[in-house]
């Protein structure tokens, strides 16, 4: 039975259902309960934005507040995964990977290969990402491209409540390390979500809307900006096909290539910085695999190569906008 809940509620529900189903699932992170050892409420926050609120009481002993010590507890989650648990560690802001990256990319990501296939590290690292909250350079980055670069990691970036729930359940059940990234601007987004448990498989892009003129690949919050742009373009008689990869590792290249081979035109929309980004990566493989089908040079719509600025006037300029997406689509459509 589907009913409308928010992206945030969908994530909470996925965690709750998986913790009920499987006693090896635990949650840890800074203030995931909020209040451990304090004189007041022990579940005061339920995560800094309340995403894990209520789980502490429902799953006693399995929702663990940690010190502000990201290497310590992210590494502990990785170690616990090696010893039979399915930990979900919350890193709060993805920017904090800077203080624990070793435990993710040198440890978790490498064990399976480096140990000759004999390790299993079913850990999930959740974090919020993305600009738009005037949170400036150290609390606003995307960074999914950084993780996507690392063999051994899987990277998930749901753009809506339905995908958030199904992809998180898949992440927890998955036997490889998963980086699960939640866009801050999407937490309050409502959508139809089944009450029962379900999975959305990795490596299967969603065709958000069909169209024969231009392919737009967009991810995370940018899916919604692409839809807005496509709505305006439809009035001009241009039909856009929008593809949401949903996971950047594994990446569903087939769906993207099939679409580009039909439309001959590609715009990639990515909120992160442009160099070595998902946008440049997708552009690159399409140029290699479908060059003959292209009727126009590929366009990338990304943030500029600068840190995320604080002032509203600058941050609004930083984030790719529906208007910029429209411009890029017009450019590929009008080329020759």
């Amino acid at each position: 039975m589907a009913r409308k809940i928010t992206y945030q509620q969908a994530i909470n529900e996925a965690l709750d259902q998986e913790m009920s189903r499987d006693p090896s699932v635990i949650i840890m992170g800074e203030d995931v309960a909020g209040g451990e050892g304090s004189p007041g409420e022990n579940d005061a926050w339920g995560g800094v934005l309340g995403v894990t609120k209520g789980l502490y009481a429902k799953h006693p002993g399995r929702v663990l507040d940690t010190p502000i010590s990201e290497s310590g507890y992210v590494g502990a989650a990785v170690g616990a995964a090696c010893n039979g648990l399915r930990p979900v560690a919350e890193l709060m802001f993805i920017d904090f990977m800077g203080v624990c990256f070793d435990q993710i990319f040198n440890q978790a990501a490498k064990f399976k290969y480096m140990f000759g296939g004999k390790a299993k590290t079913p850990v999930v690292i959740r974090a919020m990402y993305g600009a738009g909250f005037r949170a400036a350079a150290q609390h606003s980055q995307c960074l999914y491209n950084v993780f996507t670069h690392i063999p051994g990691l899987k990277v998930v970036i749901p753009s809506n409540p339905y995908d958030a729930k199904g992809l998180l359940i898949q992440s927890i059940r998955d036997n490889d390390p998963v980086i699960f990234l939640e866009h801050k601007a999407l937490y309050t987004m409502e959508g139809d979500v089944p009450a029962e448990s379900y999975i959305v498989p990795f490596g299967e892009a969603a065709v958000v809307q069909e169209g024969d003129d231009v392919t737009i690949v967009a991810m995370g919050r940018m899916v919604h900006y692409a839809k807005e742009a496509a709505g305006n373009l439809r009035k001009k008689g241009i039909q856009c096909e929008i593809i949401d990869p949903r996971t950047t590792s594994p990446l569903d290249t087939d769906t993207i290539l099939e679409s580009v081979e039909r439309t001959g035109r590609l715009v990639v929309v990515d909120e992160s910085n442009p160099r070595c980004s998902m946008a440049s990566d997708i552009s690159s493989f399409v140029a290699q695999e479908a060059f003959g089908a292209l009727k126009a040079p590929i366009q990338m719509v990304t943030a500029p190569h600068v840190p995320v600025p604080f002032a509203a006037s600058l941050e609004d300029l930083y984030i790719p906008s529906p208007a910029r997406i429209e411009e890029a689509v017009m450019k590929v459509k009008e080329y020759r």
Partner: protein
Amino acid sequence: MTSPLNREALLQAYRTMRTIRDFEERVHVDFATGEIPGFVHLYAGEEASATGICMHLNRNDYIASTHRGHGHCIAKGVDPVGMMAEIWGKATGTCKGKGGSMHIADLEVGMLGANGIVGGGGPLICGTALASKIRGENNVGVCFFGDGASNQGTIFEAMNLASVWKLPVIFVAENNGYAEATSSTFSVAVENIADRASAFGMPGVIVDGFDFFAVYEAAGEAIKRAREGGGPTLLEVKLSRYYGHFEGDQQTYRAPGEVQKLRETKDCLMQFAKRVTSRGELTMADIEAIDREVKTMIDDSVVKAKSDPLPPPEALMADVYISY
């Protein structure tokens, strides 16, 4: 004082230490020929530490190790024949030739890996211990690290986390005096690494790493406390390595004759043999029988490693993910 160990345990202790020593001496010789690929960091001289600690552990206890991990692996029960093949980069190695000396791991026997990252193991071992604790088991985790790693934030974070979560972890600082080429008297801001324990609310214990029995006893207490829910301990084992940071290190930073003197006066195998034979707990014949048995095993492991196949091309793409 009589030894707390029976004959069987004494034989096992000596066999383990002798296996580590011969393994390392042999790798030292073979590395010099240029046949062994990559980097190796030898544990020779430190055998009493890994052995005295791991003799208290069972298969369900985990250890996390270091660059200098061969000794920890052997003491925890990883097959030396597979290890030798791994060091030679062969398909028959512990990690199918894809890890090498710095990444030997065998989760089946609770060996969470030698680690190419200094201080990498601290947080990981907190995790294995947390899993045991949550499941209500009494298994422990031991994190071996060096004086170099003793200055890493990961180790501080791990000690704090282990203490606030009351995890059954023993942090073993193997202080061999040098982090690569830099003396611990320069790089560690306190006199003893164990002095840092109080900052994390746990006992700090210093032990002579040349004395197997001292290590065995100190580790026994810390591990017993951890198993009984008493929380973590920081155990500083003061010892020395007989070879360089890595093979090829000319060690010009060391005092002339430093290693030779240690070998002649403090060597852990020598002290062990002297003690158990002088007390009549083992005979020289017992010792020599183990020496012969281990030598043959190590020799055979090298013959096998040399003739074993290299990983086939298809192994390049295998085992990145469980499913992808």
